[in-house]
């Protein structure tokens, strides 16, 4: 229990951030029409590629001879970039097709 209290006090800022972001997320997204379900999903999916930032930091701080870190980080960068580029691009392609009545 003491340990829990200590963790809570130390990370208070992050706990606030966590809670408010969850509330914000539900508020921002809650009313999405059916037509946009797929683009919302693939767009959000692209945003989850933000882990790429972590992978870049990982490689930038790795020693030039720490091959395990470098290789795992490289793999992370490749996967994260596919996720981001592919996700945003395909969402854009889909949204480009959604048009209002032409005539």
């Amino acid at each position, binding site marked *: 229990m003491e340990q829990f209290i200590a963790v809570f006090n130390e990370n208070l800022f*992050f706990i606030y951030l966590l809670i408010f972001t*969850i509330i914000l997320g539900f508020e921002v997204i809650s009313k999405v029409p059916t037509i946009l379900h797929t*683009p919302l999903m693939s767009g959000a999916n692209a945003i*989850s590629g933000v882990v790429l930032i972590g992978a870049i930091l990982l490689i930038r701080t790795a020693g030039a001879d720490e091959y395990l870190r470098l290789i795992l*980080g490289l793999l992370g960068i490749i996967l994260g970039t596919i*996720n981001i580029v592919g996700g945003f691009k395909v969402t854009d392609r*889909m949204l480009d097709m959604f048009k209002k009545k032409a005539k």
Partner: protein
Amino acid sequence: METTFILNLSYLIGVLTFVFGLRLLGSPDTARKGNMLAAFGMTFAVLVTLFIPMEDAPNNYLWIFGGLMIGGLIGWRTAIKVKMTDMPQLVSILNGLGGACAALLATTELLPYFQGTLEMSSTQLAIGIFALLIGLVSFSGSLLAYGKLQGLIKDSQVKLPKHGILNLVMLFTVLGLGILLSFFSGSSTLFFIFIGITLIYGFSFVAPIGGADMPVVISLLNSMTGLSAAAAGFIYQSQLMIVGGILVGAAGTILTILMCQAMNRSLLNVIIGGFGSAGGAVIGSDSDGKTAKTISVTDMAIQLFYSQSVVFVPGYGLAVAQAQKTVKELEDLLDKNGVDVKYAIHPVAGRMPGHMNVLLAEANVPYPKLLDMDEANDILPNTDVVVVVGANDVVNPAAEDSPGSPIYGMPVLQVWKAKNVIVLKRSMSPGYAGIQNPLFFNDKTKMLFGDAKHTLSELTKEVKTL
């Protein structure tokens, strides 16, 4: 000092683009801008992370740019080439890659601790293990979902008897190991065992879920990847990753809830593996003694051409047959003759949330013609002809009038209230849920068997001759 300020400011801008980007994605008119905005914010944040000066950092730019080039090229090519009918697969696989990326980061950061070369607090450790667990489950689960959607793996091949219980046991094992590693003792061997079992659990978690339940599992996996990204953000103390990840988690959770509501089932019920498929009994009291009536292509063409209003109800069969453009062609012909054509879209039609909307948009159907369930149910009683294309459970009247049916209580499109119903279907076989559909035996209903695309193009030819 200044560099930290620039970095923090850039991440703040990144966070704002994500929030407003998602907000704009919520309305058809602004959605494209929203996506662009989030993409811009992401690019900006990545560039700043790349080039911000760091003390004593070896940088290893060759590795980074190599990775960015390879990933960017693969991502771009895939996004341009993918067919709209293959969207559910693509969303699954991209999602899995995001989860894998988070898992890789967590592994790399945690491994030195388990090898005894780095000290970590149990809070850091627990968060790292959490990111790893969710990321791995999302990765292997998404891979299996991809395999299923791509048709590489059949549901029956991976579903074991008592799979629900097996999954529960595995879940507790994985959680137990995670807690052990976080708070008690750990060796690198145990760490790798944890990774192995968690990967298997991801497969096993998705294994019993299939068919019409795919939209639920895809959105659930999506939300898990978001959470793993957020947890990884805690490792790097990166607010951008935390906020981005949680927003994705929220989006995925909302979609998961919507999909479950659209089927009137609890998430737990979906995860455990569905509709009485275990029993396999076909329930269909209405079918006793009645036979379904059929209609010829010529008769159907005439009926459509001379009616005032037609509503198409697309289902997964439309995607399988790749018939979206053929439907649109038929729509145009009918439209010319003054027939009011609309489409009624059930929220869980297809294999991912919004699947039918994407397909019809690809065929250039303007989105005001796509009605959601409530709008459709309002106009269906005044509709002359409803054409059901490859949909089944979402138009089953048993959901409303037979309390014994497994889908009883699920909101459905009330097509039987229309004046005439024509069902395009490959055969009389029941839908995913294995439930007989009394609609087929209704007096107003006529069946036209065959591949949807073939039938629709025959219809188009007939209508042209009228």
